[in-house]
């Protein structure tokens, strides 16, 4: 079984490389130093991961004879592949934002880890395509959906980060009390994160102490604003993919199942996801609903994507049952 051995090796390499990358990310995050060597290492590591996952997908494609989108395992691998593409795109962009990559790396680890975990072992061997999946729409629909999920997950994770960072203010609103001490502790991490941004500007070090807090506030505010804008752009992009994915799914359903809309649970949840992110885009239009509200909506979207992607499959409901946990 050359195929399974190869697959095994590729999975393990990518998994271990990603876990090393995560530790490097944590180190740079905590130390806050711009060590060029480390960043190069990150980039190279992600290139290795990318090629491993690509190899994994290509071998599966060659050995099964169809696009590797036929079950949950394959779509999870594809999800981590799109995450790594995202990482690469950001790496090769002129303006680097490593905090974005810090969010993506654990995402790759989790999806990769989940896909290769014992939970889905029966699924590792590739299956023949069931009749309903034998269509050219498979590529369009699944790739667009997964791409949309990836982009939206990244964007909504940024929003979650904003919420975590600004959570302190939320607590201040509710009044300071000892019970929140624990939370303050956990915020120190977030503070480190935005202080790293300050380090990059090399202003903090030159600033005398009395101005420290105001400068900190200024950069903190800038950091949040940056996150917010990045999140908005990412989610808008993901929304395009999700729209195209949903529409291609509807057109495909009209070819295969007899109607472009069946209120199948998976369809319904994809539509709910779409609605939630449409709400997100609309909250940005309103001055009164400031970034925190839109972040809350996006964080809800984060949960809803997972319900849509895994939750519905977990229940094995409806016509999309080939994506479920049990092999058909």
């Amino acid at each position: 079984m050359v195929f399974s051995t190869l697959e095994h090796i590729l999975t393990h390499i990518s998994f271990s490389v990603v876990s090393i990358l995560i530790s490097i990310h944590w180190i740079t995050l905590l130390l806050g130093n711009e060590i060029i060597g480390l960043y190069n290492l990150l980039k190279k590591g992600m290139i290795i991961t990318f090629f491993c996952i690509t190899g994994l997908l290509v071998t599966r494609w060659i050995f099964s004879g169809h696009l590797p989108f036929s079950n949950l395992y394959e779509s999870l691998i594809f999800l981590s592949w799109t995450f790594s593409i995202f990482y690469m795109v950001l790496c090769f962009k002129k303006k680097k934002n490593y905090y974005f990559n810090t969010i993506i790396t654990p995402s790759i680890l989790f999806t990769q880890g989940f896909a290769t975990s014992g939970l889905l072992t029966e699924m590792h061997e590739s299956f023949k395509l069931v009749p309903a999946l034998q269509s050219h729409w498979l590529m369009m629909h699944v790739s667009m959906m997964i791409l949309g999920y990836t982009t939206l997950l990244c964007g909504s994770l940024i929003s979650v980060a904003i919420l975590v960072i600004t959570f302190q203010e939320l607590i201040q609103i509710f009044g300071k009390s000892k019970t929140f001490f624990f939370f303050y502790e956990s915020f120190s991490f977030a503070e480190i994160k935005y202080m790293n941004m300050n380090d990059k500007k090399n202003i903090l070090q030159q600033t005398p102490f009395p101005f420290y807090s105001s400068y900190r506030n200024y950069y903190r505010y800038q950091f949040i604003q940056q996150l917010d804008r990045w999140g908005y752009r990412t989610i808008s992009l993901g929304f395009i993919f999700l729209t195209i994915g949903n529409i291609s799914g509807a057109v495909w359903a009209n070819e295969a199942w007899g109607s472009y809309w069946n209120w199948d649970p998976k369809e319904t949840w994809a539509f709910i996801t779409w609605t939630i992110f449409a709400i997100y885009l609309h909250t940005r239009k309103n001055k009164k609903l400031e970034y925190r509200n839109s972040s809350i909506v996006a964080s809800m979207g984060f949960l809803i994507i997972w319900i849509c992607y895994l939750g519905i499959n977990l229940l094995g409901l409806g016509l999309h049952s080939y994506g479920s946990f049990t092999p058909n």
Partner: protein
Amino acid sequence: MKALSAINSTNPCLPNTHFLKVPIFHPFFKFNPFSQPYNVHGHAANRAHKLPFTISCKLKSSRDVENKGKSVAQKIVLSEASPPPLTEDDVTNGDTGNVPQSSKKKKGGPFGLLNMLRRKTLQILSSLPLAIADMFAAAALMALGTFIEQGEAPDFYIQKYPEDNPVFGFFTWRWILALGFDHMFSSPVFLGVLALLGASLMACTYTTQLPLITVSRRWSFLHSAEAIRKQEFSESLPRASIQDVGTILMGAGYEVFLKGPSLYAFKGLAGRLAPVGVHIALLLVMAGGTVSAAGSFRGSVTVPQGLNFVVGDVLVPSGFLSSPTEAFNTEIHVNRFYMDYYESGEVSQFYTDLSLRNMDGKEVMRKTISVNDPLRYGGITIYQTDWSISALQILKDNEGPYNLAMAPLQINGDKKLYGTFLPVGDINSPDVKGISMLARDLQSIVLYDKEGKFVGVRRPNSKLPINIDGSEILIVDAIGSSGLDLKTDPGVPVVYAGFGALMITTCISYLSHSQIWALQDGTTVFIGGKTNRAKMEFPEEMNLLLDKVPEIVESTLPKQADSISG
């Protein structure tokens, strides 16, 4: 944090106000570089404002080498092509639809009241919080619809959601049945929410978005450095010329308009207008969905191979607009139903060979359909959706053939199992025994003797007899029946048009509408700009572009002017 929210939000009403104040630019484009003096002083603006011009590709700034070329020339054609018909004189006439609207309001009588009511309704419907709340409500109802089992009998809900043990302390079957949540996606509550969403879409498109088109198509100049500095991005370039800035912006794909010392440039206008298209596309999809719901027919039928049926007998109207057509008289004959298998034995595809015959019995169409490849004829679509085994054809001791009807057996899981029974011995005795035959698909039949013991497996058409309890059984054929879904749906073209428009406009919506204003004040150029989406990239892009603007040393001024005219 308040400052952040102010910067973040784009207020669509904001441009309205300064459009009123700013004299509208005369859209008469004349390329006249010689008559246009190289203005560096503010007071020249008054003299020059009747002679507007755009910069041509011939205009070269000293350091700007990359930005010359075709794209620049094309831009000029573009900006000439789309000037809005507005001059300084008809500011009041051309000033959007607001003016006539307000005059209408002054009218008294019942019409005025009606008008006010209409305006009030529109105002409420187009409010953003309402739309957001409505979308949340729709999402919540849909989620609820996937958690509550749909389309079951009332008894099911009475048992599942009993009154003595309500979910969340209040949710019982009474709620479900009263609100129609047992058929959520056609319940009045859900449809009402959708209708409200549609109404608010329409109101928003009408009151907010369509006026936006007329407003954003116009270009405006800012005449004070103060106003420019207030923009999200602002910069001042000492010893620079506004013409150079214009050329560079043009090279970067901006539409540039120059009037005296003022410059206005924009890019990605489509990105601001596309959301209007998104809303219209959504309305199209909703309209198509309504037509589908009201005017379609559907039906499903399981036809054994070799039999036929009439389309009109199967199709059931789904709404009040459904009206049968000529094609409903077509008779469909199932010539053959068969499956393809992978080497591993799994089904790879189902096929049904169908013949369509008209009233006179003449064949009008013949096609082999499969999953993902339906048949379309006269507005009717026939899908391959299901299958079953209808009969086994056997020879018993070379007698027959007999057709044994197969019955589906209830087993756990989704796998299908069909069985039939061939009695052996006295049929009239109370405990009749016989041979059982079971089949999962059309490939192989498992046979058991009358004691229930496994005897063997035979393939149809294998011509290999099997001996059970003294009788020789030969399985001649397994006859499948094809499960077909039929439908007519007049809404599909509308919905597809909406889908296409939705995809395109959503993609265009990603474009960011950037606007740049610049003002020459002495030798300094003040530049300010804003963009509605790409707020991260915009300052970077601006800084990159402004780095290219050449610095002017006083003595080289005449030379600069030469290069402009040349």
